[in-house]
């Protein structure tokens, strides 16, 4: 209890908690879940974009997209490392992902149908991610906060590149415009879902905010995202697919339509349109290549022995 009080005081004073510091079990558990979920999202998130690397429409776009997925692999790595400092191994986290116990962002359960989706992901998905992650640069857990600093810098770069793709298509041929509008239609609502359930249905928010694992509520972040994104759509002549969308002078933000929470919970449950495909891709990559990891371990073992001899 004394330790707990000291811990809470440090957190309240915006100090960083470090791996060797004492922390409540629930804090450790919640953080492990959150960071590993974030790491999994980076890795699973390579798949929808990977789907277009081989089909990028110019050498420049191909290079940019390769650089982007490379960054995502990098983010996955620091985040797994940050989570490991809390005492769970990467192997355990990956097994939890593959068994369906651990989650990843619902957004990656939607398919990338056209090149415009690559723009939409950069603009909306990375945009929403940044919205979620910027406050986490000041999260209470040191390794996580530091990982977030680097992640955020790269994400905002990705977001600008994504928006640039959208702008190019929105100013392009009629087919390109149509493709882009269609992508916005499909990605808009799933992007809003990325902020999680409404505050009223998010019972852990209060605790997480007290612990500075979260610094804003889901609905606050969602509102912020809508307010920033709608003018960006307008600027390039795209229509946000929400008939209820309307500027509200009083609150100084947009009112927007009801999210299909039933869809959200179905996707969380693993019934998203390409959830089965994503999990199969990850499991196959892991299981069919187990022999590579085993070989690397065997070789390292032999080498250590030889060096010792």
């Amino acid at each position, binding site marked *: 209890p004394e330790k707990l009080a000291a811990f809470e005081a440090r957190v309240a004073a915006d100090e960083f908690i470090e791996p060797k510091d004492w922390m409540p079990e629930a804090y450790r558990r919640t953080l492990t879940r959150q960071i590993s979920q974030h790491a999994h999202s980076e*890795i699973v998130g*390579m*798949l929808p*974009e*990977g789907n277009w*690397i*081989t*089909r*990028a*429409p*110019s*050498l*420049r*776009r*191909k*290079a940019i997209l*390769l*650089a982007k*997925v*490379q960054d995502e*692999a*990098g983010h*996955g*790595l620091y985040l*797994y490392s940050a989570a490991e400092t809390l005492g769970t191994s990467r192997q355990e986290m990956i097994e939890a992902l593959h068994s369906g116990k651990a989650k990843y962002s619902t957004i990656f359960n939607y398919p990338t149908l056209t*090149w415009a989706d690559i723009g939409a992901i950069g603009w909306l998905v990375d945009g929403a991610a940044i919205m979620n992650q910027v406050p986490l640069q000041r999260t209470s857990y040191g390794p996580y906060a530091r990982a977030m600093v680097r992640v955020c810098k790269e994400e905002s770069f990705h977001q600008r590149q994504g928006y640039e*793709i959208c702008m*190019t*298509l929105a100013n*392009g*041929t009629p*087919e*390109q415009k149509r493709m882009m509008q269609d992508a916005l239609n499909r990605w808009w609502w799933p992007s809003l879902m990325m902020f999680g359930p409404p505050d009223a249905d998010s019972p852990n928010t209060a605790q997480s905010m007290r612990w500075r694992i979260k610094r804003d509520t889901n609905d606050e972040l969602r509102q912020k995202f809508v307010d920033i994104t709608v003018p960006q759509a307008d600027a390039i002549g795209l229509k946000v697919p929400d008939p209820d969308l309307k500027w509200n002078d009083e609150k100084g933000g947009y009112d927007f339509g009801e999210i299909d929470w039933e869809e959200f919970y179905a996707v969380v449950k693993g019934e998203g349109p390409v959830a089965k495909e994503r999990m199969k*891709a*990850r499991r*196959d*990559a892991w299981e*069919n*290549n187990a*022999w*590579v*990891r*085993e*070989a*690397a371990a*065997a*070789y390292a073992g*032999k080498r250590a022995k030889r060096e010792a001899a």
Partner: protein
Amino acid sequence: DRPLFDYLLRLGDDSLILGQRLGEWCGHAPSVEVDLSLANIALDLIGQATHFLNHAGAVEGRGRDGDALAFHRDVLDFRNCLLVEQPNGDFAQTMARQFLFSTWQKLLFERLTTSKDETIAAVAAKAVKEVAYHEELSAEWVIRLGDGTEESRRRMIDGLDWNWRFVPELFEMDVVAREMAERGIGADVTAFRADYDRKIRAVLEQAGLEAPKDQRPILGGRDGHHSEHLGHILCTLQFLPRTYPEATW
């Protein structure tokens, strides 16, 4: 300058096609670290391809840039060697291909740094460092898999065996290659064949592997006579620019 144009296509297409192949791995590699390195190598290769193909377009002088060349030629006009278009297979096969190619590409680029064509020299000077990393990484995997487990050893043997047939093509000196070498623009690849063999054998030895048996060389890539794989690669690579020829992206 038709021979120079052709030579640049060879350089550019080698990098482009191998970069495309590596891009297929994205999200499916044995570990996050490997996923990262494969994307990294692919990125280097696509960068090289961009420089060489843009330069090829400029040399040709018919208004084609790197994109036009990458996305609007069919198989008979591609000039890459057969090795780079070989399927990824398993990770051992991918690393075997990379090792056989990058070892060669590094020796080539070292020589091209002194090319009389300034663009080639400049691109090679930058790329040679990238390729040194590709060679090192793939050599390490050849050793690790060759000297890892029974299974990884068997797979590496198969991977080398699949790709070995395409090595002689790397050292072919046809009319174009000879002219480029004579003009001081290209390199005489036969001059580093012995170096290449030595490097390959050294790594294989460290891996505890024997070199596969030599067979009748399979040639043709430099004249547009490819394996059946390239056509399928191009279907994917070129889909968007072919489908929307009016669009810019």
